[in-house]
């Protein structure tokens, strides 16, 4: 029986993962754990005791507010980390994609395989966060499962756009700026650490169009059981609306670069 092409592309990446899985898994747990403890408990102790802050958070402990957002930011950071240099390198330095291009695979299949691989990488990282959240009493919730799915969808949006960017670059000069000027601001202003309502009026609409904010809101809504059907549909719609053009660009850029 035929195996889907994207899965066969993934098999290659999984072989490489075998070499690094120990450090990778450890980091996947350690990093969110430290982050969650540092921010959740540290900032939490400041915030939880102030009535005005507690009210802005909707009357929940800071850790409960922060935790779900970390699922989405982790997916985004993983997507950014694994789709800039590794993708350009696949074209320029390791010849991975060139080798694939000479086989019966098509560009679109290579792209799908790459997305699937990012799904695995994000799954490991987001899964690490989910386990930490499942253990802590302030964040334990049956909503973790759908929240992980929402974080993955959000991460896939970033995977698509960042992969498209990397695939269309000749050099990696812009990559650290992508990290600094796109990813980091989104990370800080995407509503993971405080409600975007506390931002100045002019900045709020910016958060509303960024995919990260929608991912964060979905994760939080699932885990706090506050997500209504309309909100769920809207957030999903915005994320899918971001995903499709990014995916199309990936297909284009891969085809152009592999077969030129």
């Amino acid at each position, binding site marked *: 029986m*035929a195996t889907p092409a994207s899965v066969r592309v993934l098999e290659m990446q999984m072989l490489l993962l075998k*070499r690094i899985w120990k450090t990778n898994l450890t980091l996947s747990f350690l990093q969110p754990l430290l982050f969650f403890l540092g921010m959740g408990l540290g900032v939490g102790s400041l915030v939880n005791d102030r009535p005005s802050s507690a009210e802005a958070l909707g009357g929940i402990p800071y850790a409960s507010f922060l935790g779900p957002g970390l699922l989405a930011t982790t997916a985004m950071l993983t997507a950014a980390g694994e789709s800039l240099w590794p993708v350009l390198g696949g074209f320029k330095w390791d010849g991975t994609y*060139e080798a694939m291009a000479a*086989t019966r695979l098509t560009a679109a299949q290579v792209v799908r395989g790459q997305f699937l691989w990012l799904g695995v990488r994000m799954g490991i990282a987001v899964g690490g966060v989910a386990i930490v959240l499942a253990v802590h009493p302030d964040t334990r919730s049956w909503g973790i499962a759908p929240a992980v799915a929402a974080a993955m969808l959000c991460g896939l949006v970033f995977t698509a756009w960042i992969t498209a960017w990397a695939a269309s670059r000749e050099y990696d000069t812009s990559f650290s700026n992508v990290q600094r000027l796109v990813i980091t601001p989104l990370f800080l202003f995407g509503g993971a650490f405080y409600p975007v309502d506390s931002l100045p009026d002019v900045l709020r609409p910016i958060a509303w169009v960024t995919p990260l904010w929608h991912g964060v809101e979905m994760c939080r809504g699932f885990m706090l059981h506050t997500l209504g059907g309309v909100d769920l549909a809207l957030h999903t719609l915005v994320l899918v609306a971001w995903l499709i053009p990014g995916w199309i660009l990936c297909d284009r850029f891969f085809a152009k670069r592999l077969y*030129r």
Partner: protein
Amino acid sequence: MKRFGDFEAVKGIDIDVSPGESFGFLGPNGAGKSSTMRMIAAVSPVSEGVLRIFGLDPAHDGSAIRNRLGVVPQADNLDGELTPLDNLIIYGRYFDIPRSECIARARELLDFVQLSDRSAGRVDSLSGGMKRRLTIARGLMNRPEMLLLDEPTTGLDPQARHVLWDRLYRLKQQGVTLVLTTHYMDEAEQLCDRLVVMDAGRIAAEGSPRELITRYSTREVLELRFGAGQNADQESSLIGIGERLEVLADRVLVYADDGEAALREVHNRGLQPESSLVRRSSLEDVFLRLTGRSLEE
């Protein structure tokens, strides 16, 4: 025809390769060999003209064509971090060959390219010749009807080249169609039933190595060295000996069917070259005749 922007890398080529044949592109760096090979491999769109591989159009059936091809690109693109065995298995999987079958073929091919004892280390630790053989094995994973080899032995030491030639010769005997590029005339002579001499994106001549030599050169060549800077001065005194003269920086080539007779005539004229050598004509002479330049600059 292949254009990169305004630059025409491959200007005009007209060839047919039949199944089972071993066909070569002989030409210097920049002749357009790799560009041509990439078009044949269905990884580079044709800018103009008609190209059919197995009767299929690469513009529409690229994937189906690639499914039946084996490719050995000019620069190895093996996965250095993986083992030779894994490199082959993974590649076979791209063709949707079942995993168990991939393993069986990979072992068989590692045996064929004499790398069985190195199947478990990292590819990074292999020598250049071993990597080249592994790339050939990889290109054979899908049991291709045609194997494309872009400069299979460039950069290898003589012994590694001979090992490789021997393997390619065996493939040829098994009936695999070979299409290869090279800028080594000895390689072309060894491996090709038929070849084209390529220069600056065009075909300068076509035929079997023997035919080309007969058509464009004499049976033998007399090489004379008169010492630094003096070769050109001797040209006028050599006129009339042999059929044709070619004056190079370091030597003068006298084209004659009987080289020894030509050498006697040189001595009869009282000329005293520092050294002389009679040899058979090669494809190098064909190339020199056709382009006025030497193949290996």
